[in-house]
């Protein structure tokens, strides 16, 4: 198959770009262990409201200063409505849904996950900027979808001595 010289150059360049993308993908995955949130843990959606953990959603500050935030999503709200975490510490979010699929997105950060009934979503991030953040549901869940939101307040607290990384880098 005879290929025109310019086209050959172009094809090699295109191949180069693809290989570059693949290399950066492989590097971030293996080298820096940056992975999409892919927690595998099951929960009975009908038992969410009585579940020991998800039936009492809220923020826990752990012994090492990090925070764990347990969130219950349902049509059309998140519990807790207001989440307070210290600045600059690792914050692990654990979420599940009591009914349909929802989304959980902390606007202005890359804190973003699907919340699926029957499954527990989990991701860890940290916030370097104190202040108020808007949390929205970003998966259509019914006629009240556009009112489904919550508040995240990042506080300048005792645990927030050293700031970690850029704003809200999910790991």
């Amino acid at each position: 198959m005879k290929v025109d010289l310019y086209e050959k150059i172009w094809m090699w360049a295109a191949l180069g770009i693809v290989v570059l993308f693949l290399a950066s993908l492989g590097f971030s995955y293996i080298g820096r262990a940056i992975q999409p949130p892919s927690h595998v843990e099951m929960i009975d959606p009908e038992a969410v409201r009585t579940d020991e953990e998800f039936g009492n959603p809220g923020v826990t500050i752990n012994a090492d200063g990090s925070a764990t935030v347990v969130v219950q999503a349902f049509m059309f709200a998140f519990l807790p409505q207001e989440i307070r975490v210290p600045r600059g510490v690792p914050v692990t979010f654990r979420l599940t849904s009591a009914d349909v699929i929802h989304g959980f997105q902390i606007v202005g950060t890359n804190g973003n996950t699907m919340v699926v009934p029957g499954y527990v979503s989990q991701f860890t991030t940290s916030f370097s900027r104190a202040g108020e953040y808007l949390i929205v549901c970003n998966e259509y869940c019914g006629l009240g979808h556009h009112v489904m939101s919550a508040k995240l307040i990042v506080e300048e607290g005792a645990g927030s001595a050293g700031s970690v990384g850029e704003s809200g880098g999910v790991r």
Partner: protein
Amino acid sequence: MIGARRLALANFWVAITAFGVAAAMALMQALSRADLALPWRTPKMYYLSVTAHGVLMALIFTTFFIMGLGYVVTERSLDRPIKLRRVGWASFGLALLGTLLAAWAILWGKATVLYTFYPPLKAHPAFYIGAALLVIGSWGWSWVIIHTYLTWKRENPGARTPLPVHGYMTTIIVWILATIGVAAEVVLLLIPWSLGITEKIDPILARILFWWFGHPLVYFWLLPAYVIWYTMTPRIAGGKLFSDPLARLVFVLFILLSTPVGFHHQFLDPGVRAGWKFFHSFNTQWILFPSFVTAFTVIASFEVAGRLKGKKGWFDWLGALPWGNPAFSSVALSMIIFAIGGFGGAINAAYGMNAMIHNTAWVQGHFHLTVGTAVALSFMGIAYYLLPRLTGRELELSLLARIQPYLWFMGMLLFSVSNHLTGLAGMPRRIYQFDYGGSEIADQWVAGTGISALGGVLLFASALCFVAVMFGTGFAGKKAQPQPIEFAEPLETPNNKAQILDKFWIWVLIAVVLIMAAYAWPIGEHLATPRFGSRGYSPF
């Protein structure tokens, strides 16, 4: 005159009607997202309309148009009548019946589940049965084209498969491999569940099967557009196809790469291990390659057109192209838009960046460039070329036809750029309004949604022009001696080079192995894990 003319036209009319209805709903949505207080604006209307718009545009308009174009391209480029025309009509009838069933369920407010219909949102069974009939109808159409092709091969031993049919065969192969996923989802999971035969459903399993289908679906849309770009537009521009074997290579690569990539739509899903997401993400990056090659080959073919008109400079050949002919300008403009869409796509596919934009307005900004323009505008362009040739009438309202692609281009730039930006600023897609209890953070989306609404108005005006030209031509156009439908000749005839690119079974075999690796294993793993199910909800 071609024998399958009426069959092709029937498919085109359904496509054009679906497009017109969906465009009217789109205008309402674009205005609503900008929070304009329209009198009939309610959440129920909004989400119903988004469901109808998504289904009519992404599933009905595209599928029927592709089927119609398939008949024309196959019959003309093989220069033999379509076989099994009755099966073609039966398939058309089934697909139309499915469309009407689903449309009934949607318009009566019983299926406001959006075109992705993720359970446990539960629609009326008519919606799922309608979807299944549409797919079965498309399989019937596939069989008609395959059968005609195989018959031609038997009649012409040793002849090279014409490129347009090569492209259409890859389209059909991609479609069949893709629809296995959605057929399994709809028939095994959703229909029994919506009828009450099964009580619970696993939402992640349903999403895996949906996106097995959902990503190759985009290549089912795109490949016929590529057939137009490679084999029809260069001819319309007065040029020749720059490289025939490379076009075949591109088509074959899509057979391999279309399907084992679906998890890139599920980067943020729980219940799917990161390793699988990485594997699909790895496969996804390769898809850039055939599209880069396409850009070069098609633009080089246009350059040939300019050169044939005697242009010698670096860029003056561009001016020699028929920009006033909507059949050409729409494709050229849609290619510019597709290049922008490609950059966005590379960002979507990198899961680190994906978390910034997943399910935000960015996504609707993105796919209105790709399917909403690269595909849809190319289809509109080729409709200007085909309709007079199929109906034996002159193009009516040709001034509207001439401005329509430019109007769409401008409207889409406004609509899409603003949606990309509000998406980056965190505005979710699929929302009726963005008040969020008077949130100041949500306030920063006001300007973007306003520009998007303006773009929506231009797009709607453009859609009206298109529909007016189509119906005007089809029903009131002046009778004329129809001109022939012709395809671009390659600069160099392919002779017997790279024959292997025409041996579809080899590529299908490799594709099946890749799909097994990418899906059979993770699905097996998933099924082996104890899971809970969900009951249905219909909060609409």
